[in-house]
C-alpha cells in the first residue's frame, strides 16, 4: 500500500459481507477468482478426507481424521480439517485441502466481519447460507477436479439445539438430522453411526461415538487416517453447546481413542448394536 490513507471505498457505507467487499476491492484475494487452465487439476494437490458430526441434547460434536492424501501417497499425517467458524459453530472440510483451508479462512473472516459491523451475530441459517454462497462460487474449480465439500455444524441459540448442514459442490445446502458425514470415508462412518448413535447420548458418549465412526472409516477407507498410536496423533474434536464451542485437548481425545483401540483389541469390528428393534 503506497497511499497510507483509507481508500474511499472503505469509508462508504454498504455491504457488511467481507467476501462481497473483497470481490469489489481485491478480487484476487478470493479463492474462487483464480483462473485455472483447462484440464483436470484434481491430482495436483492433497485431499482431505472424512468429517463426522453428530448432535446430542444441548449441543453438537464435529470430528475429523488427520490424513491428507495425494493419489496413493499420504501427503500429511496431522492435517487439521475441523475449524471453529465462530464461537458457536464449526466447519469441517473434505476435498482439495489447500482451497478448502483458504475457504474456511474466508468464511471465518466473513462471520467475524458481519458480527463486528452489524453488532450482532448471523443466525445459524444465515451462516450456513453464506457458506453455500462461497461453495457455489467455487463451482468452476470443482468441475476441474478442485472440489471443496464442507460440513457445517453449530449450536443454534435461537432454536436451543445443535444443527448440522451438508453441502454439495454446486452450493446446495441440506440440513441433516442427528448425524452426518462427508469425505471419502463418509459411507463407512455413516454406517457406523447409524448403528451406534442414540439421541439421548451425553456429550462424552457422542464424542466416543464419532471417534468409533472415524475408526470404522479408517478401517475400510485407505484415505482416512485412524488414530496414530505411535506418533500420538488423534482426531480433531470440536464440541459446541450453549456455552460456546471448544476443541477437546489432545490428551482428552487420546483417552477416548485409547479406549476405542482397547475395545477393538478384543472386538476388531467395534461395539455391537442390539438386533431387536427398539432395544436399548
Amino acid at each position, binding site marked *: 500500500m503506497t*497511499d*497510507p*490513507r*483509507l481508500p474511499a471505498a*472503505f*469509508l*462508504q*457505507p454498504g455491504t457488511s459481507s*467481507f467476501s462481497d*467487499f*473483497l470481490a469489489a*476491492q*481485491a478480487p484476487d*484475494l478470493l479463492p474462487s477468482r483464480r483462473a485455472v487452465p483447462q484440464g483436470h487439476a484434481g491430482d495436483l494437490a492433497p485431499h482431505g478426507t472424512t468429517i463426522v458430526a453428530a448432535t446430542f441434547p444441548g449441543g453438537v460434536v464435529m470430528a475429523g481424521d488427520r490424513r491428507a492424501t495425494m493419489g496413493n501417497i499420504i501427503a500429511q499425517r496431522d492435517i487439521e480439517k475441523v475449524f471453529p467458524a465462530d*464461537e458457536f459453530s464449526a466447519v469441517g472440510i473434505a476435498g482439495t485441502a489447500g482451497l478448502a483451508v483458504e475457504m474456511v*479462512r*474466508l468464511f471465518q*473472516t466473513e462471520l*467475524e*466481519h458481519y458480527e*463486528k*459491523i452489524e*453488532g450482532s451475530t448471523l443466525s445459524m441459517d444465515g451462516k450456513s447460507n453464506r457458506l453455500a454462497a462461497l461453495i457455489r462460487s467455487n463451482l468452476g474449480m470443482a468441475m476441474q477436479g478442485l472440489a471443496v465439500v464442507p460440513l457445517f455444524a453449530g449450536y443454534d441459540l435461537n432454536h436451543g439445539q445443535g444443527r448440522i448442514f451438508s453441502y454439495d459442490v454446486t452450493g446446495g445446502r441440506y440440513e441433516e438430522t442427528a448425524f452426518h458425514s462427508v469425505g471419502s470415508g463418509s459411507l463407512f462412518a455413516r454406517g457406523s453411526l447409524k448403528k451406534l448413535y442414540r439421541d439421548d447420548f451425553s456429550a462424552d458418549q457422542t464424542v466416543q461415538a464419532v471417534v468409533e465412526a472415524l475408526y470404522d472409516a479408517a478401517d475400510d477407507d485407505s484415505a482416512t487416517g485412524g488414530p496414530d498410536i505411535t506418533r500420538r496423533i488423534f482426531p480433531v474434536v470440536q464440541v459446541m453447546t450453549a456455552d460456546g464451542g471448544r476443541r477437546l485437548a489432545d490428551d482428552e481425545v487420546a483417552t477416548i481413542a485409547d479406549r476405542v483401540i482397547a475395545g477393538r483389541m478384543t472386538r476388531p469390528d467395534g461395539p455391537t448394536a442390539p438386533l431387536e428393534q427398539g432395544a436399548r
Partner: protein
Amino acid sequence: MSMPFYVSPEQLMKDRADFARKGIGRGRSVVAVQYADGVLFVSENPSQALHKVSEIYDRIAFAAVGRYNEFENLRIAGVRLADMRGYAYDRRDVTGRGLANAYAQTLGTIFSSGGEKPYEVEIFVAEIGDAPADDQIYRLTYDGQVADEHGYAVMGGQADTVGEYLREHYTEGASLDDALTVAVAALGHTSADNGGSEDRVIPTEDLEVAVLDRTRTQPRKFARLRPTRLDALLGDRGPATHAAQPEQLGEPAEAPAPVGDEPPIAPPG
C-alpha cells in the same frame, strides 16, 4: 455572483478547527483507562444500539466521540482494513499503529482539503499486548494529529473536568473494579461555574463499558460489560440519577446550530 474574498490560511484553518471542536464538545466524554489486564473504556451512553466503543480486531478497539455518522464510517473502514490485512497476511500482522496511521492520514487529508467539511470526531485506537507495558492508546484528533497516551485518556465534551478528576485518582495497575469505579466517578464529576463541584452517580444502564482483556482465552480480547456485570463490579454507590439532558447520538447537534455556524469551506476558485 459575489466576488470571492481573501481569507488567510491561518484564519481558514482556525475556523475549521473551531468548527470541529464545537461539534466534538457537544458530545459526552469517553474515558479509556489502562488497568492490570488491559484497557477499559467507559462512556455515558444510554443507547444499547449505537455504540461509541467497538471491536476492530483481536487486540484492537475503537472509541469515538462527535458526529455519529462520521465516526461510524471510520469504524467500518477500520474493520474492513483490519480484516482485509488479517486475511491477506496473518492475524498477527494487524497492528494498532498501522490503523492509527491510516486514520491519521485520512482525517488529516479531509481537514486540510478545502472541499470537504472537517470531520467532527475524536478517536481512540487502543491495542493490548502480552504485558501492561505493551498496551497502547492512540488519540486521534479531527485534524489528523496522533498522540500516544499513557495511563488514561479522555475525549469529548467535559474532557478537562473528567481528565482532572482522573489525574488525581488514577492509579497504575489497578484491578478491573477499581479502574471502573474511578472511571465512572470521573464521568459523573462536574465542576460548577462557581468553582464547586458535583458528583452524580450514573445508573449502570446508562453506561457503555467495554474492555480489551488479555486474560480472555479467546483470540478476540474485546468484551462488552453488561449492566448486571457492572452492578456486581461497582457495588453499592447510592441513588443514581440520569443525565439532565439525554444526548442524541444519531444527531449530536441537538442544539440548533446558530447562524454563521456553517462548515467553513473555502470559496470555489
